[in-house]
């Protein structure tokens, strides 16, 4: 056996492993040539000019992805402008999701936008503190936001005010264990296996087949948090 790994051998020690991965080959010029959307999306500057004070910061992630952190109070206004303004024209809402970093840090709501005519991507993020998980729904701008917002509500517990049909979508409607994708949610759920089984067996299957569920599609009343009314008027 050649033994001591620090003295050479096929790999020159484990400092590389400890250092973590970097760019495997130095071909940054080549990589930049392949990027279709040049770093520094002009929409970021335009958004700052249009909504002074509402853009908190912006950064470039993973080489070429523009991320904008905006004021959650004005999200519909800003996304509506990004959607309607002919210079921006972000007509394709690729995704809505949320990220919980754990440790009591705010949960980020992430909107992934794509402009089909301009071939540009923009990621808009809103930070919501854990005691005020509420943001305005953007279903009025993109109909496709409906289920995506329901999923975020289902798995993170973020309330989208003004959503026409905010119900759980992946988890059962009588799911009582909380919001599974939160970091404080244990992997196996909050209840024991026995309790989960008991709840599953005691629920009334008739509940799933009542004709009333069609009628229940009328907009669910979401009580706005105190002090929201004034802002709601300003949102176009």
């Amino acid at each position: 056996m050649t033994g001591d790994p620090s003295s050479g051998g096929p790999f020159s020690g484990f400092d590389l492993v400890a250092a973590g991965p970097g760019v495997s080959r130095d071909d940054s010029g080549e990589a930049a040539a392949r990027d279709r959307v040049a770093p520094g999306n002009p929409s970021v500057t335009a958004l700052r000019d249009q909504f002074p004070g509402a853009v908190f910061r912006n950064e470039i992630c993973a080489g070429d992805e523009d991320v904008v952190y905006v004021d959650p109070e004005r999200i519909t206004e800003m996304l509506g402008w990004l959607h309607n303004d002919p210079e921006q024209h972000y007509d394709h809402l690729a995704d809505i999701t949320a990220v919980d970093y754990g440790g009591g840090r705010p949960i980020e709501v992430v909107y992934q936008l794509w402009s089909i005519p301009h071939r540009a991507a923009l990621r808009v993020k809103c930070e919501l503190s854990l005691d005020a998980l509420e943001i305005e729904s953007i279903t009025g701008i993109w109909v496709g936001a409906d289920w995506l917002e329901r999923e975020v509500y289902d798995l993170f517990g973020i309330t989208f005010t003004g959503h026409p049909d905010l119900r759980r979508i992946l988890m059962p409607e009588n799911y009582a264990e909380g919001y599974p994708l939160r970091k404080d949610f244990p992997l196996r759920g909050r209840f024991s296996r026995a309790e989960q089984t008991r709840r599953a067996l005691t629920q009334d299957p008739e509940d799933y087949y009542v004709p009333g569920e069609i009628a229940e599609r009328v907009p669910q009343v979401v009580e706005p948090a105190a002090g929201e009314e004034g802002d709601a008027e300003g949102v176009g």
Partner: protein
Amino acid sequence: MASGTTEYAVRRNPEMGPDGTLVPSPTEPFDAPEPELGSETMLVNVGPQHPATHGVLRLVVELDGETVVSVVPRLGYLHSSFEKLGEYRTWNQIVTLTDRMDYLAPLIYNCAYVMAVEKLMGIEVTDRCRVARVICMELDRIFSHLLWLGTWSIDVGAFTPFLYAFQQREKVYTLHEALTGARITTSATRIGGMMADLPDGWTKGVREFADNLPATLDEIDGLLTCNAIHIGRTQGIGAISAEEAVNHGLTGANLRASGVPYDVRKDRPYYDYESYDFEVPIGCHGDCYDRYLVRMEEMRQSIRILHQALDRLPGGPMDIDDPRISLPTKTDCMSDMESMIHHFKLITDGIPAPAEDCWFSVEGSKGELGMYVVGDGGPKPVRWRIRPPSFVNLSAIPKLSEGHLMADLIMINASLDIVLGEIDR
């Protein structure tokens, strides 16, 4: 009254004429007064256990007679919480979760996931790996479209195309098996490369498949494309305009059938797709029939890409030459102490990713398949999110099917080409 009934019965039932020919039933409508049927609607529960829902999808349908008044999809019967599971695994361990989501095109999901992670980590894979992944993705696009074609024709009432399509799918299964050892849950990719290099003769098998497929497609084309029943069941059914389709977030063939030429391979090219010669077919009516035509043409275009990729497949290593990412070979691990330690360290510690987030989307078989990965400097993701194309496509089904007949709802559902493993995740 009695004579009227008799007369009607005679008119309705075809009979042998005096000269031995069959007298066809007349086509004039029965002009009896419309019966009073009341105005209440009926609730029909479609699924979750029904072959026409293409998985464990449940549609609660409100019917007025045979007309669909409203549709409420109920999801979650297959919910496996893959995104939560991923937060407890190292980056490479997640690969096995990705192919369970879309078991109809597992290689596309394997590739899309590692491509997102590689972008996050700033890894450039080898040229051979780039082309091999293009071959894998195009092969599975055909693989997925063939299943859609088979089930679509079953739903329209034609059994033969189903058998033809599944005969061809079987060949792709064999290719999967040769490549990875598994037929459905391939888990073929690793960060920085593939699970293994392409086996001997595999490219020959892919070439043979690509050579033989057009004949089958032509046969199915002949059976379906100009078939009066097929046209009657699908033309003008479930139509959606281009603006609405974009606003609903539709992607893939469902969007292109409405006339929007949005294809991630063309609009945000990855893996040198801009250098392949292929067309993006679009429809102009946005109905079920156009979605059928678009997918049929997409298979032919994928065959073109397959041929080009096979032609340009370079030699050389499959995995990147970076000991922080790539495992040593099995032979080295078994004969060399350093390699064994290296292997052990990589497997137990995982590969750390920078504290950043990264969105990467590819053109999956169902639509735009996005992967959003968030790292925190450790070997496990903080968040791993899949942008599920079927999930968003399915959300348009109430809009597409309201006002159509119950039987049309089945065709609309088939035309969206959904897979429940990915919708429920």
